[in-house]
């Protein structure tokens, strides 16, 4: 015969056992991910902060700890304001025109047509993402070559009778970096939005059709509201991605002409690796990290992402 006290002891033991199991599971399942996060995300930030307070130069020597790099950022670097302005235009332009809007148009159009054709077009738009970046940019360099051999100039001169070839790399470099990055960025939005559109119950569209809704009304009142969370996610994710990526710009325009296409991340790269000013590059990079965190938090708040991640109130069986 067991007393109440015995039962309580057994229950406590059980709880203790399950708590220790929970701890073990935590270490087994989340441990590797936490270690990797610390190694590749937290430690680099700490190193960056440490380096930014040194005079680490091109031969990787540190002779003193200093705040000089921050003084440079705030006092002497006159390129910085131009670079920040350009980065805003680049990120906002690419995001607004391609990564969200064009991705959405592609998703809506390719889900509105026959499945085979839709899949084919989506496949075509995925090609740039699947190609190596160097190959993709080589094609762009050929397309916008300022000679008569360039694809754009061939079309303009032969089909539209243009007299002299255009030099888009010099005359419209910002548009070029937005378009070349946008063609790749649009594919991610396209896939996420396509999946979300596919998840909308079919009967809603039929009901709307019965109520006399046309195509645009269906998009406006059924599709778009259902895409709110994917749009929010794509916007925040792609903003952060655009802020730190520069490889296509480096390959296409090398940041030029002059500093016209040197976005912030590329500026950090040029300062650190082309001039050997690693300490200064680290200070600039720290601001990029801060900007990224701030943008993510603003986006989180603005799009009310917390609600997206809440547990569903109704359990569906």
């Amino acid at each position, binding site marked *: 015969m067991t007393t109440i006290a015995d039962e309580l002891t057994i229950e406590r033991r059980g709880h203790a056992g399950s708590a220790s199991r929970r701890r073990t599971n935590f270490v087994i399942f989340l441990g590797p991910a936490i270690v990797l996060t610390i190694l590749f995300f937290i430690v680099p930030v700490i190193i960056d902060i440490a380096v930014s307070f040194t005079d680490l130069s091109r*031969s990787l020597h540190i002779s003193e700890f200093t705040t000089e790099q921050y003084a440079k950022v705030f006092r002497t670097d*006159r390129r910085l304001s131009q670079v920040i302005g350009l980065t805003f235009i680049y990120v906002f332009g690419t995001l607004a025109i391609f990564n969200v809007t064009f991705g959405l148009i592609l998703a809506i159009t390719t889900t509105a047509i026959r499945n085979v054709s839709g899949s084919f077009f989506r496949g075509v738009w995925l090609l740039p993402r699947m190609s190596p970046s160097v190959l993709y940019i080589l094609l762009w360099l050929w397309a916008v070559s*300022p*000679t008569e051999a360039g694809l754009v100039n061939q079309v303009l001169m032969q089909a539209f009778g243009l007299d002299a070839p255009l030099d888009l*790399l*010099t005359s419209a470099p910002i548009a070029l970096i937005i378009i070349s990055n946008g063609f790749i960025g649009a594919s991610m939005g396209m896939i996420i939005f396509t999946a979300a559109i596919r998840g909308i119950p079919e009967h809603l569209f039929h009901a709307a059709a019965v109520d006399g809704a046309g195509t645009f009304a269906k998009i406006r009142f059924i599709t778009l509201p259902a895409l709110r969370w994917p749009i929010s996610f794509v916007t925040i994710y792609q903003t952060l991605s655009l802020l730190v990526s520069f490889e296509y710009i480096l390959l296409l325009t090398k940041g030029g*002409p*002059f500093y016209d296409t040197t976005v912030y991340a590329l500026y950090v790269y040029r300062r650190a690796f082309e*001039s050997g*000013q690693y300490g200064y590059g680290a200070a600039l990079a720290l601001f990029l990290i801060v900007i990224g965190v701030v943008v993510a938090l603003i986006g989180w708040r603005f799009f009310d992402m917390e609600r997206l991640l809440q547990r569903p109130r109704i359990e569906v069986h």
Partner: protein
Amino acid sequence: MIHWKIGTAALLSAALAVGSAAFLAATPLFAQETVKLELWSRQDPSGPLRPGNVVKAAERLNKELEAEGSSKRVEVVVRESPAKGFDDDALQLLKVFGIGEGPDIFIAAHEWICAFQEDGFVLKLDDYIAKYPQHFGTIFPSLWSSAKCPDGTYAIPQDAEARMFFYNKKLLREAGYDAAFVDAMPERALSGDLTMDEVLEIAKQVVDKTKAPYGVLHRPNKGPDYIMVFQAYGSNFVDPQTGKLLLERDKLAAAFGWFERGVKEKVIPANNTAMEFDTLRKEFYTGNAAFWMYGIWDLGSVAFPTYGLPQDEKAFFADWGWIAGPAPQKGGAPVSLTHPIVYAIAADTKEPELAVRLLGHASAADLNTDHAVTTTHLGIKAEQLEDPRYVKAWPLARATELLKITKFLPNNSQFGELNGIIFAGIQGIESGRLSAQQAADFVIEEASATLEDVIVK
């Protein structure tokens, strides 16, 4: 019995003697020590014999060591860097030295040598150079200045070249200039009679009166040639008293003004810096540009083999030619630039003596001539001028005339970075983002903000 004993003893003694002799003869072989010297070299198709000659030199040095009875033998291990230019290569190598993984010997563009010296990575060579006159005594004295830092000599010149304005005589004649005028241009440039602006005028005539779309083309990336224009307008970038970087606003603006006028007159294309190197060469060598600002080795590396320019001297000069960088105004001084590549030895190499001797053999006149005639670079020693192979390579002999007026890039440890800023200024002007005055201001602001000890006047 006694006979048997004597015979056995004799045989044993003989065997012992032969064995000892064989052992003694084999001893040096067993004791031979191989010294591995690592050589850092950029993968550079314009000079494969720069490392190649060091490898060959090891054979010569080993024979010498053998003759001396030394037990040491040298083996060269080449470590190739894939850097796309000497600037990138130097930055990479500075990092390699910084983490203690530097080579024993390296090949670099001369203007970087003081950056290595400043961080204590490179060996001072004055005593060694004096010790081995048989190797270094006949190197042109003028070339040694490209290997010096404020307190001594830190490198050995490996080659030299001449930078100039190549020009297409056919196009100039088509534009209306008579043959006498066209052929006299090199002389006029050397005497200071031909000016920088006259080059733009001639180029303008070519663009206006012929089918050629370009007047003057220059390299599309950071490099030495366009510095010639700044030197013509009086900028030498280093204060002779202090050795610090010197930027003179008016002189910078004057040089940038030349580029600005060139673009305004549609003589220099606005997208010159966006074009590929190969495209620029193609445009010039296929008759689409009047002038090409570059260096003598381009004839041997590209013009002859790729574009089929005549290799015969007379045939070449019938339709092509080159001039020194003209003077800024009549009666002024013309310029040419030479950009020696140098050999240097790491300060922490375990065998500095052997490394110096190895580079001494690599600098032998015959090996250097192999490099010179196969890549159209100028030699480093007077005796090379008499080598029949060198004499036969007429571009070398003809370009040597420019050495009388040649200048170097400054051996300042920060010049590589300053040159990047100057190049950005040229790009700003040509793409219409900056005026000449703004470009001068930009260079001064940028250099003052990012470099140390810059004197501004």
